[in-house]
């Protein structure tokens, strides 16, 4: 059992942290050393903001085309129904392919397709307990799903790193959770024939990004230490199409499935 194509999304994984910790990150080290895997930096050509970025990755459309800009508009939490575009799972499902998607964070709580899942912290994990629970539950649910049925496409995403980096950029806790994510990914790789591991954007110290996406001090008074960076990560296995932007992930999956 497993999936013909396995997509692992990591909200805000960034090479600068991965590369300096390669001796601790066994999976990322293996992915770097293996000839089967290609790795590159995916420099975004759109604002590095999770809601529109994930939507672009899985609709193949630019932010202007899919029209999904924010998690909350006019005090209303945006849901799948507010986005007037087909996602890759909608299209493939109509074509009769076996598709499942877990915890995709273009909305909050994150979206699930053909899977029942309740995200810890309602998909916005902000404490150690919630970060641990997210990594553990997403991994467990992914393995359960992949062991149960042969799929054409399985997408699974982790969001904890984004929240940790916003709050603790530069701290040892960031490296600690990269290690946990590294371990989680290591458990999933055996289920994918063709694999894409991608982040929606990268990360950096506040003030270092070309585009500042969030305020330095939030509306409830807490200070943010990290901000989104335009350089996302990309690792692929068995994918022929050259992926040069987030929309290309959609196109690559469509071609390969």
């Amino acid at each position, binding site marked *: 059992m497993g999936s013909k194509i396995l997509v692992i999304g990591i909200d805000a994984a960034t090479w600068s942290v991965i590369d300096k910790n390669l001796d601790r990150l066994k999976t990322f080290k293996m992915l770097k050393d293996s000839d089967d895997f290609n790795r590159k930096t995916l420099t975004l050509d759109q604002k590095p903001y999770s809601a529109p970025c994930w939507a672009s990755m899985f609709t193949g459309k630019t932010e202007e085309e899919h029209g999904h800009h924010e998690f909350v508009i006019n*005090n*209303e*939490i945006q849901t799948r*129904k507010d986005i007037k575009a087909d996602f890759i799972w909608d299209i493939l499902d109509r074509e009769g392919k076996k598709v499942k998607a877990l915890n995709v964070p273009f909305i*909050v*709580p994150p979206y699930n397709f053909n899977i029942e899942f309740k995200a810890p912290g*309602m998909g916005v994990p*902000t404490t150690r307990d919630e970060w641990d629970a997210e990594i553990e539950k997403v991994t467990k649910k992914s393995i359960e799903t992949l062991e149960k049925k042969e799929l054409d496409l399985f997408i699974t995403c982790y969001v904890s790193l984004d929240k940790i980096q916003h*709050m603790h950029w530069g701290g040892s806790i960031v490296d600690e959770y990269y290690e946990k994510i590294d371990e989680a990914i290591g458990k999933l790789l055996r289920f994918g024939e063709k694999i894409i591991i991608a982040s929606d954007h990268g990360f950096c110290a506040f003030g270092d990004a070309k585009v500042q996406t969030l305020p330095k001090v939030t509306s409830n008074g807490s200070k943010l230490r990290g901000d989104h960076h335009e350089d996302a990560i990309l690792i692929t296995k068995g994918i022929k199409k050259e992926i040069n932007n987030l929309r290309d992930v959609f196109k690559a999956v469509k071609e390969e499935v």
Partner: protein
Amino acid sequence: MNHLEKLENQSIYIIREAYKQFKDIALLWSIGKDSTTLLWLCRKAFYGKIPFPVIHIDTGFKFPEMYKFRDEWAKKLGLNLIVGKNQKALDKGITCCMDDQMTCCKYLKTEALKQIIEKHKFKALIVGIRRDEHGVRAKERYFSPRDEEFKWNYKDQPPELWDQFKSKGKEDDHLRIHPLLHWTELDIWRYIRKENIPTNKLYFAKNGKRYRSLGCTRATVAVNSKADTVDKVIKEIKTTKTAERSGRAQDKEKAYIMQKLRSLGYM
């Protein structure tokens, strides 16, 4: 004129004004205490016979006591009842508070209501919301326009000064009319007592629990209470520090998510 008579007077004035402006209008009846009070006021406004349809949006997950209450009183009061259900969504397996937790309400409530409005070409709906129920509802107007996508822009609403209402919207606008906006939960219960309005038994304590607000079974929890009569409910509300909609899951989840997004600078 006492306080309750003033409230009643104002509400009946708004209901009559709405009916004068829109013949293609309907009353939204959730089977709860507020919309049943509103139903009562509509009957009074038109001398016992409501001249427009009454809509119940059935998510398929309401309490059995609510369905029983609906059918019994729709018959007794001679209502022109329209039941709206998004059968397509239910057939697709969308269930209450599962999968995408914020979406079920949209499919099973909003979408079902949209379908009814499109089918019957209603231009306006009378709805029993109150300002004191929820922070967002405090921003509402008596005559509240929604755009063609059904969305409410609370930052762009008509002023309602000195009881002057903008009771007509733009061409494509759909209007929500809120005759109970100025009522409080306590006013509702006092009026229920005064008028002896039929009320669902779920509102009264059984085994130390009662519902203060009714919704879908999976998204509504009972509160601890010993109030098993209207008088005791009134007494309890006077002193309680628990929010009326504290048992409604969608309100809690939304507030929780918003709070978290604010802490990360997303709002």
